[in-house]
C-alpha cells in the first residue's frame, strides 16, 4: 500500500522537491543579500525609529525598500503555494481514481478502501506538512530584516508565512482538495471547487475575523493633538478615525473640509469630539497565530472527516 502510494505520487513528489528547491534558492540568494545590506545600511541603529518619525531612518528604509521592494512584492505570492498543493495534489487524489474508474480495481483488492484512504492521507498530508515545515524555517529567516525595519509582522506577507498559520494553511488546502475530489468525483471540477472553498474559508478569516481575535486596544486623543500617540512599530493598527459627541466611531468625515479651514476647525464643523486609534499590540502575535491555526485545523478535520465518510458510504 505504501509502495502504491509512492508509485502513484512519486512524480508529484519530485515536482514538489524541484519547486521547493527553486523557491529555496531564490529565498537563500535574496535573503543573504537583504541581510548583508541590512548590515551595510546600519539599519540596526534604526530599529523602531521609523515609526517615531526619524526621517534619516525613514530615508534609509525607503532606500532599502527601493532595492528589495520587488522581492518583497514577489514573496507576497507565496501564500498561494499551499492552495496550488491542495488543487494539484489534493483534489485529484480521489477524483482521478473515480473519474478514470481505477477505483473499481483498487478498492476490490485485499486492502479495504478505508485502509487505502488512510495510508494515502497519512503519506500525502505528511509529505505536504514536511515540505511546508522546511519552507517555514527558511521563510522566518528571510522575513526577519523587513520585520525589523518595518515591523510589519501583522502584514499579510509575513503573517501568512509565519509559524503555525503557514503549516495549518497547507493542511487546510490539502484537506479541502481531497474533500472536493471525493464530493465531485471529477478532477477539473474538484480543482475549481478547491480554489473556491479555500478562498471562501480563508478570505473571511483573514479580513474580518483576524482583526478581532481579541478586542483591540483603543486609544483616544484630542483633536488639538496633530499626531496620534506613538505606538510601537510591531503594533497592528486595525482602524483609526473620529469619535462624535454621541460616542459613535467613523473612519470618514461626514462632510469634507473647506479649503480655507484649519484641520481643527474642519473637525469641529464635522462634529468630531476626539480621534481614536484601535490596535492589536505586537505581543499578541503568537496568540493570534495559534488561534488562526486552530480555526484552520478545525476546518481541515471537518473536510477530512467528510472525505472519509464520502469514500466509505457514498462512492461505490
Amino acid at each position, binding site marked *: 500500500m505504501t509502495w502504491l502510494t509512492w508509485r502513484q505520487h512519486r512524480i508529484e513528489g519530485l515536482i514538489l522537491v524541484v519547486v521547493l528547491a527553486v523557491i529555496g534558492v531564490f529565498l537563500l540568494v535574496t535573503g543573504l543579500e537583504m541581510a548583508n545590506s541590512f548590515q551595510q545600511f546600519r539599519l540596526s541603529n534604526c530599529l523602531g525609529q521609523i515609526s517615531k518619525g526619524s526621517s*534619516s531612518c525613514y*530615508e534609509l528604509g525607503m532606500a532599502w525598500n*527601493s532595492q528589495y521592494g520587488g522581492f518583497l512584492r514577489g514573496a507576497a505570492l507565496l501564500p498561494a503555494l499551499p492552495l496550488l498543493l491542495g488543487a494539484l495534489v489534493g483534489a485529484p487524489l480521489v477524483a482521478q481514481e473515480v473519474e478514470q474508474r481505477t477505483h473499481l480495481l483498487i478498492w476490490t483488492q485485499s486492502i479495504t478502501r478505508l485502509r487505502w484512504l488512510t495510508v494515502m492521507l497519512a503519506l500525502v498530508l505528511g509529505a505536504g506538512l514536511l515540505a511546508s515545515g522546511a519552507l517555514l524555517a527558511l521563510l522566518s529567516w528571510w522575513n526577519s530584516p523587513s520585520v525589523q525595519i518595518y515591523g510589519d509582522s501583522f502584514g499579510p506577507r509575513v503573517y501568512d508565512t509565519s509559524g503555525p498559520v503557514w503549516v495549518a494553511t497547507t493542511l487546510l488546502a490539502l484537506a479541502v482538495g481531497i474533500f472536493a475530489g471525493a464530493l465531485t468525483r471529477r478532477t*477539473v471540477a474538484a480543482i475549481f471547487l478547491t480554489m473556491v472553498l479555500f478562498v471562501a474559508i480563508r478570505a473571511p478569516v483573514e479580513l474580518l475575523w483576524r482583526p478581532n481575535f481579541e478586542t483591540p486596544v483603543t486609544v483616544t486623543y484630542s483633536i488639538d493633538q496633530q499626531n496620534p500617540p506613538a505606538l510601537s512599530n510591531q503594533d497592528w493598527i486595525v482602524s483609526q478615525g473620529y469619535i462624535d459627541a454621541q460616542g459613535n466611531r467613523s473612519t470618514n468625515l461626514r462632510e469634507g473640509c473647506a*479649503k480655507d479651514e484649519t484641520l481643527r476647525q474642519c473637525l469641529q464643523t464635522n462634529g468630531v469630539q476626539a480621534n481614536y486609534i484601535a490596535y492589536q499590540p505586537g505581543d499578541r502575535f503568537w496568540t493570534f497565530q495559534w488561534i488562526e491555526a486552530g480555526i484552520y485545523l478545525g476546518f481541515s478535520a471537518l473536510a477530512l472527516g467528510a472525505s472519509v465518510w464520502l469514500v466509505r458510504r457514498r462512492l461505490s
Partner: protein
Amino acid sequence: MIWVSSRQHRAETLVVTLVLAILAALLLKTGLDMASAYQQLGIGACLAETRRSQTCNTALYAFQGGFSFAISAIVWLNVLPALLGLFVGAPLLARELEQGTFRLAWTQSVPRLRWLEVKLALVLGVALLASAGLTALLTRWFSPLRQFGALYFPLTFDFEGTVPLAYAAYALTLAISAGALLRRVVPAMAVTIAGFVAARAPVELWLRPRYLPPITLTGDPGKVDAMVPKTDWALDNGWVDQMGHQVHTGAVLATCAPGQNSIDFQGAFAQCTHAHGWLMSITYQPADRFGLFRNIETAIFVALSVALVALTIWIVRRRIA
C-alpha cells in the same frame, strides 16, 4: 462543430460569465464610490497644490485609506488569465486525449484540424471579448487613481489597453499546448501555472523597466528630485560621487544627517553632500514612453501566443495518432 464546442463548453461559459458578472458588480460599486469620494473630498484640487495644506493631507489620507483595501485587492485580478488557462485551456485537448474521446471526435466528417481551428477560434474569441470588457471597466475604475501620477503605476500598467488581452491569449494558448503535449489534465494545469508565472514575473519585474534605457539625472538634493515629474516612473534613487561611482545611501546619511530626526533637503544636508561632492541620482522612465511600453509588452505575449498556437497545431496534426 460550433454546436459541439458550445455544448462542451457551456458549463465553463456559465461559470466565466458568473465570475465576470460578480466582478463587474464589485468594480462598479467601488468605482462609483471612489469617483464620488474623489469629487466630494476635493482630491483633484489637493493634488494640484504645490504645498499641501493640512486639510488636504487629511482629505488625501481619508481617500487613500478608505480605498486601500480595494486597491490592494485589485492586484489579485492578475491571476484571472491563469485561471482561464487552468480551467478552460488545459482540459481543452488534454481531457479528450486522456479519456480517449478524441478517437471518436476526430474520426467524424470534420477533420481534426478543422475541429481544432473552430475550438481555438471560439475559446480565444470569447476569452478576449470577456477580458476586453473587464479592461474597459478597469480603465474607468482606475481613472481617479491615475490623477495621483505614477503612484499606482506598476498596478495600472497590467490592466490597461491591449496588455491584459495579450496576457489572456498567452495563458490560454499556453494551457492548450501544454494539454496537447502532455495529454493529461492535471500535469497540463501545473505546467500552465508554472509557465504563466515564469513569463509574467520576469517580464514585469526585470524586463519592463528596460524596454528603453532609463534616464538618469544627477544633481544636488532638493533640485534634481524636483526635475522629475510625478507622472514618471521612478526606478531607482541613489547617490554618486563626481566620478560617477555609486555611494551607499547609508554612508551619505550617516555622514550628513547622523542621528538626525528630520532632514531638510534644501538646507544643511544639501550643503554637506555638496561639500563631499555627492550627487543624488534618480533613474526613471518618462511617462510619454508608457504607450510604447504597452505595445512592446503586448507584442511579447502575442508572439508567445502565436508560437504556442503553431506548436499546438503541429502536435495535433503530426504527433497524436
